[in-house]
Structure formats: C-alpha cells, structure tokens
C-alpha cells in the first residue's frame, strides 16, 4: 500500500475522519462560493446544522448543469492566484466544465493515482508508459504525476501513433501501460495486422492500467489474453479530481474508493433518496479536502453500488462495482449497454480517423438496429473498393469485439452528419417514444 495508515484504517475511524473533513469542506464551499451559499440557503440548510454523517441527506445536490452554468471559474473557492492548474471536459453537449486545482489539490491527485498504481502492483522499479492524452483531459497529467510521485520511470507518450507506442514499449522496456481499454485492443489489432513478427512476449509489459470509459469483464479477458498482461481498472471523473477516485486491487473485483478524500453515497436517481450500503443506484461524490474546486454532493450519473467485503488485499476502504453504466446517455441495444464514448473510442483507434460519426438506433420489427455513419476524410479514403470495404469491415469487427454488438457501418461524405455548434450530433435514437 502506498499509504497504509489510510488505506487500512478501521472503518469507524475512517468515518470519524470523514465527518471532520466534511464539516470543513461544506463550510469552505459555503463561505467562499456564492453559488453554494445561495443553493444551501434555498434548501434551508446551514453548515452549522451539519453534525453527523446522517445530516448529509439535507445538503442539496450539485449537478453537471450547475457546473456548466458557472463556466468557467464560478465554482472556484480560492482566488485564481492560488490555482495552479485547470482541466476541462470537452463540452460536447454544452459549455465545457472547468475544474481547478491548488498546489495541495495537485498533490492529492498525485497521491491517489500513486495509491492506485501500488494497488495494481506497480512500484518505483517500473517503467510506466502513459498513452492517455495529455492536455485539458485529466487522464494524461493525472497518471503522469501519480507515477512520478510513486517514483516510477514515467514515459509521457500521450495518445495515438501506435507504431511509436510499440517502438517505445520495446526500446524503453515498458512494464506498465496506461490507456483507454479500447485503445489497448486497437494496439493488439495493430500488431496482429501490421507487425506479424512482433512478439508481445518479448516486451517486458506486465500490467495495464485502463480507464476513462466504461469497459466490461469480456474486454478485460480479451486485453489480458492478447497483450499478455494483468489489466486493472482506474476510475475517476474530472468533476471530482480525475482518475484515482477509486482503483481495483489485485483481486480485480470492485474498486476501493479513496474515501479519505472523497465521500461517497448511493442515491435513487429518481427520488434523490440515499440508499443503504449494497444497493445499486447513482453514486454521489463530496470532496473532503479539495481547496480550489470543492464538489458537494455531485451527482455523477454513474450507476454502481457500495460495499465492504473484507478484501483480501488488506484495504478497508469501501468498494464500488466497476461502473458499466451512466443514467443519462447510455443506450441499450439488444440488451447490451452501449455508451457513445465507447463508440468514439472504437473509431479513434483507426489510424488517421478523427471521424465525425453518428449512431442511429432504430427498431426494425422487434429487433434494435444500429447504424454507425462515419464521414470519410482524405486519410481513410482509397480509390480501391476493397480497401474501403475492409475499412467498414474492420470497424464492424471492432464493434463486435469491444462492445459485443453488430453494427452496420455506413461510410458517408464529409459534412453529411448534421452539426450543432460545430460538434456532430452523436446519437439519434429513433426508437424513442415507442418503448
């Protein structure tokens, strides 16, 4: 364990620590962010009334929309000269959400990522190649600081450029690879297709750290088998801190939440009522130590459950199930849960595609039908039909193996897919209204 005292703290003691920190965090938000003060007052809640964990249910929720409405700095609780970094979401469906970090916050972020890495068995002797995008997205820099904090040799490769990823993997003796799970599968595909002489066994790769999109146990099995590694889930969201909110341990069965920094509750997404431990619902986060961007009862829309199972790894931290669903943008296609982000990752893996795509879900008879339209840009265009047909076929194969669904791939001309505010409309669900 990276922080044994915290990670194996008796549950009662952790609750005491949480209560103490919650009092500070709620007060901090109320005193320094006019938005929280107004919201608390409107709900008839005052920080002085907060005496026990049970009082949490009186604190109003924070939503993604609140964050958008306060773009860019409206929810910061410290003066900008104390903020040393910002990250932001893409803003696909509205204003971007901007999150800020003080020096302390950056340290906490690095600490929770370091703890995650240690729980997978990573140590300072490892060479950690980070293939998450570096930039406004929390993945790249988040893993980077955590890996450095642990003292591992950190390779800031960033995303894309598969041949170079593989070259570095071999030349630098990479032992730990961090990326989205679908990118890992794309690497496996790339090796199979383009580098028949490349033996994954000849590299020193042993551990994969995957996150930033929901993935299934089937994908884990496929990644582990094809890349000959142990694949672990790292979970997080930028609104809370980034990757490292929770992490799997060697058990690969649930993720331990670093609950000395993040207080978690499960609520009924319809009523907002807090559910008892073990029940499935929407997970809600409250930051306990964050200075720049406190988040008080943030509704994540992620569906999971919380439980203590006396984990064999020795961590006493509460566990959450691997998140496989969000309550808002998930599509259920022939009983399979599919997220637009997963579809995006499938397409991103195709060299040269920064594709505009649109998913059209329709019902033909009693069957759901999924069509993915992909705009053909110059990088993927060929004058040969067989090359174009192969492209469609490869995309369809990738869909089948990573999402478990058959999709019809339709290649279309540029500018065919309608755009709103410059971004493509990603999903059209024609089934709506008849279900």
């Amino acid at each position: 364990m990276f922080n044994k005292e915290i990670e194996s703290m008796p549950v009662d003691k952790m609750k005491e620590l949480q209560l103490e920190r919650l009092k500070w965090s709620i007060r901090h938000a109320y005193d320094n962010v006019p938005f929280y003060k107004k919201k608390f007052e409107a709900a008839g809640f005052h920080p002085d009334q907060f005496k026990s964990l049970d009082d949490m249910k009186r604190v109003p929720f924070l939503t993604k929309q609140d964050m958008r409405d306060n773009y860019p700095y409206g929810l910061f609780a410290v003066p900008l000269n104390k903020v040393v970094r910002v990250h932001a979401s893409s803003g696909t469906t509205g204003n971007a959400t901007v999150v800020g970090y003080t020096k302390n916050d950056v340290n906490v972020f690095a600490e929770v990522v370091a703890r995650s890495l240690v729980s997978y068995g990573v140590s300072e002797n490892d060479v950690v190649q980070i293939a998450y995008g570096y930039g406004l997205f929390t993945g790249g820099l988040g893993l980077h600081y955590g890996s450095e904090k642990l003292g591992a040799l950190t390779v800031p490769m960033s995303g894309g450029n598969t041949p170079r990823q593989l070259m570095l993997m071999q030349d630098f003796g990479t032992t730990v690879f961090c990326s989205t799970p679908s990118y890992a599968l794309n690497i496996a595909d790339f090796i199979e297709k383009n580098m028949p002489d490349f033996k994954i066994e000849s590299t020193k790769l042993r551990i994969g750290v995957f996150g930033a999109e929901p993935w299934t146990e089937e994908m884990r099995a496929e990644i582990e088998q094809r890349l000959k590694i142990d694949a672990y889930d790292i979970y997080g969201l930028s609104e809370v801190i980034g990757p490292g909110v929770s992490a799997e341990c060697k058990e690969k069965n649930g993720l331990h939440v670093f609950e000395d920094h993040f207080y978690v509750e499960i609520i009924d997404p319809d009523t907002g009522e807090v559910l008892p431990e073990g029940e499935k619902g929407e997970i809600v986060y409250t930051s306990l130590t964050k200075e720049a961007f406190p988040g008080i009862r943030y509704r994540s829309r992620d569906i999971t459950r919380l439980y203590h199972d006396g984990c064999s790894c020795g961590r006493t931290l509460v566990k959450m199930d691997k998140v496989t669903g969000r309550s808002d943008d998930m599509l259920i296609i022939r009983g399979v849960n599919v997220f637009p982000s997963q579809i995006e990752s499938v397409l991103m893996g195709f060299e040269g595609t920064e594709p505009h795509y649109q998913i059209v879900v329709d019902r033909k008879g009693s069957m759901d039908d999924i069509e993915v339209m992909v705009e053909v840009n110059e990088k993927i265009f060929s004058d040969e039909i067989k090359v174009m047909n192969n492209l469609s076929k490869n995309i369809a194969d990738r869909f089948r193996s990573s999402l478990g669904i058959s999709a019809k791939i339709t290649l279309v001309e540029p500018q065919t897919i309608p755009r709103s505010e410059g971004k493509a409309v990603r999903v059209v669900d024609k089934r709506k209204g008849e279900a």
Partner: protein
Amino acid sequence: MNVTQLSAFVTNKPGHLQKVLKVLADENINIITLTIAETMDFGILRMIVNDPDKGYKVLKEHNITSSITDVLALEIDDTPGSLYNALDVFAKLNLNIEYMYAFTEKREGKAVMIFRFEDIDSAKKALSDKGYNIVRKIDIIGENK
C-alpha cells in the same frame, strides 16, 4: 511520366455525383474518361482529367474527399484478343490488376486501357519488355498542363 487519375468519394444517392461534376465544370476541368465503382452506400468516381492537380485542389476546397493516383495507360490494337494478350503478360508475372477501365474514344485507331496496380513499375517494365506502348501523361493532356 505516369498518367494521373483523380478519384472522389461519392454517396450513392441522387444528386451527389452531380455535385462533383459541377465543381469540375465550374473550374473548367475536362473529363477525358471515367468509371464508377459502386457499393450499396457509396461509389468511387475515377477520372482521367486534363488537369488532375487542379481538379484535386478544387474538389478539396469543396470538401469532397478525393485523391490522386498513378495509373497505367496502355495502348492496344482495337482487335479481338488484344486485351487478352495484354492481360496474359500480367498473369504470367502474377501481377494483380486492382481494377481497369477503357478510354471512351479510340486514339489514332487504337484502344486505350487504364490499369490500376499496386506495383505499377513492375507492370510497366513487363509491358515495355513485350513491346507495348505505354501512354504518357503528355500524350493525353498535352504539353501545357
């Protein structure tokens, strides 16, 4: 100098091909011959034009996905069996033809075939060795372009 082919990606729906042709017409680009390979959803329009570089540029400006490729233009006798004999050269050398099409008009009493190869140089060499006349860019589109 190889003959250059201009190709464009066209959705297989009414009006889409016309849009490409309008761009070329507006820019005064003449199509010397063309062929379309079609699928259910899209077609690939392949053309020999008088100014492929300009054609590529203007299609790109109009957001039409396009490319330029070297192809082999071969002059053969306009008689039964001539094409068979030419293909025999490729078959014997195991050179796969990706696709082929013909000029719409006879040139000086001869037919001209366009071939697309992965390995255009081997195909050219094989034909030259057999005494075939490979049509050059200059023969088709003239000195000035």
